[in-house]
Structures are given as C-alpha cells and as structure tokens.
C-alpha cells in the first residue's frame, strides 16, 4: 500500500531512534502530550469538585425548606464555616459577603 510505503522508518527501533535524536524528539512530543493532558484534566477535575459542591448546597437547601427552621442562606453559611463547602476556591471574606446577597438570575 502507498501509505505503508510513505512511512519513513523500516523498523520500530528506527522509529524510536529518530535518526539519533530520540531524546529531543520524544521529549518534545511527551511535553506536548503532558501539556494537553494537564490543561484538559485540571478543568475536568475542578468541574467535578464544583458539581459536588453544588449538589451539597442543593441538599442542604432542600433539608432546610422541609424543616422550615432557618433560612437556607444561614444553613449554607454554617456549613461553609465548618469547612464543608470549600471547593469553590474563594476567600472567607468573599463567602461571607456572597451568602448575604440575594439570588440572582442570569444577567449579561
């Protein structure tokens, strides 16, 4: 086949060797692969952490509306102060401000 003939190498060893520049060529491609993997996997991990946090918030709010004891905001603030909701990566002062803010719809 034409495609097979177009391959520049006759054997695996030759492919790995890259004409004597094995280290440089493979280091660059390895770095490239690592770079892509990190910049895809890190956002994905952060996403699952965020979703876990959001689900926890939702659970607490549901409990609160059933018990109708205190307001959801207070309950979340309590959970935050216990360090249960720490995945959002904010500072403590910001959270304190945020929890007092009323719920917003999406705004552009």
């Amino acid at each position, binding site marked *: 086949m034409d495609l097979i003939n*177009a*391959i*520049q*190498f006759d054997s695996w060893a030759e*492919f790995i060797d*890259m*004409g*004597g*520049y094995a280290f*440089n*060529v493979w*280091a*660059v*491609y390895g*770095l*490239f692969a690592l*770079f*892509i993997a*990190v*910049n*895809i996997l890190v*956002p*994905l991990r*952060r*996403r699952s952490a*965020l*979703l876990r*946090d*959001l*689900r926890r*918030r*939702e659970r607490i*709010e549901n409990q609160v509306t059933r018990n109708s004891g205190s307001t959801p905001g207070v309950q979340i603030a309590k959970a935050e102060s216990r360090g249960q909701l720490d995945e*959002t*990566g904010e*500072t403590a*002062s*910001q959270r304190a401000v*945020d929890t007092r*803010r009323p*719920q*917003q*719809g*999406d*705004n*552009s």
Partner: protein
Amino acid sequence: MWLWFAKLGSPKWFYELSTKWLPWLVVATVLVIGTATVWALLFLPPDYQQGYTSRILVVHVAVAGTSLAFFPLMAVAGTITLVWKMKLADMVAKNAAALGAWFSFITLATGSIWGSVSWGTWWEWSDSRLVSMLFQFFLLLGVVSLRSALEDTDKAAKACALLSIVGCINVVIIKYSVEWWNTLHQPASPVSLQSGSANGPEFWIATALMILGVYLFLSVSLILSTRNEILQRERRALWVKEMIAAER
C-alpha cells in the same frame, strides 16, 4: 443585533451552547491533532539539513504561533469587560491568562529542546523570538498574579482588563525593541539561527494542520475552564440550581 450581543454575553446561554458543541469540538481536536502527530512522526521525510529534528518544529511552531494569540484575545475580552461590562468576557480572560502562560512556557521549553540540537545550546539570547517570548511569559504571569492578588471579583476583572490592554500594546513594543537590540548584539557565531527555510511543503502542511489542532485544543481547554468559572460565579443563580436539581 444588540439583542444577539447581549445574549452572547449571558453565561447561561454560553453554558448551554457549549454543552451542545463541546463533544464535536473534542472530536475535531482529537482527529486533527492525532492526524498531525501521526503524519509528523511517521510520514514526514527527514529534512536534508535538520534530519528528524524538523519533527520538533512541527509542535514548536504550532504552539508558538498559537501563544501569540493570547494577548490580542485578552485585550479584546478586556475591552468588552470595560466597555460593556460583560461578565462572560472576563471569565474567558481570566482563564486565558493562565492558559497563555502555559502556552508560552511550552513554547520556550520546546524551543530550547530544538535549540539544543540545532544551536548546540539550550538557551540563546541572540534569538529575539525566544527572548520576546520569555517576556510575554513574564507579562502573562503578571496578569495572573494581579488577578490572584485582588480579592474583589469585579475589581480584579476591570484591573486585569486594563493590564491586558496595556500589555498587548507592550508585547508589540518589546518584540520590536528586542529585535533591534538583537541585530546590534549579533555574536560572530557560525550557527545559523534561521530555521524553516529548508523545510519542504510536507513540513508546512503538517505544521498548518498542527496549528489548527492546537487552536482547537485551546478552545476546548478555554471552554472547559470558562464553564467552571460560570458554575462558580453563578452558583446562586436560579438556572444553575435548576440544572443541579434536574440531574437527579
């Protein structure tokens, strides 16, 4: 037209649209980068001067070319933040700064690995492209550290927007002044710093394909982190709560 513009800036709209588009974008990225990599590694004929090291350049040139897009991108996003106060623009800009720093770093790393073969040294001050890329890296890190130093999200958004616009102008000035400096300090070395002139059309097709792939990867990574930013900043918005509730 303005309605469309306002809609574009809505985090909810972006989130929902990107949910639909992301799988296709990922498929395209994998296909293009995969094809370009296989082509570069297996089929690219060795360069008559550089041998198989021209395979390094396929990746290096693609990442380097793409990393030049970050400051213009951030400057445009910054202008949108300052003029129209669009939240989405800042969410993109925030992640673009960090990703841009990554891109610059990888450009420097792959460049020095290539240089270790072609120039016989890992770092060469007399290559103006490397030097100005180093300063672009520093400038991007400056934007990232300003962002992390300012606690107020709104203030940080505007401050980083302004810094990105100034930085974008400055990157150009730095590039030209470094080139100027370089021509005057050209050491009498026999090593030719010119690259690429000896490469054939196969090399440029592989590189063009890789550039397309890297741009696609950039957009995938940027969309992923922007979606996270949306979830975090809009976590008290009704639509986010409804989406979480609907999951079960």
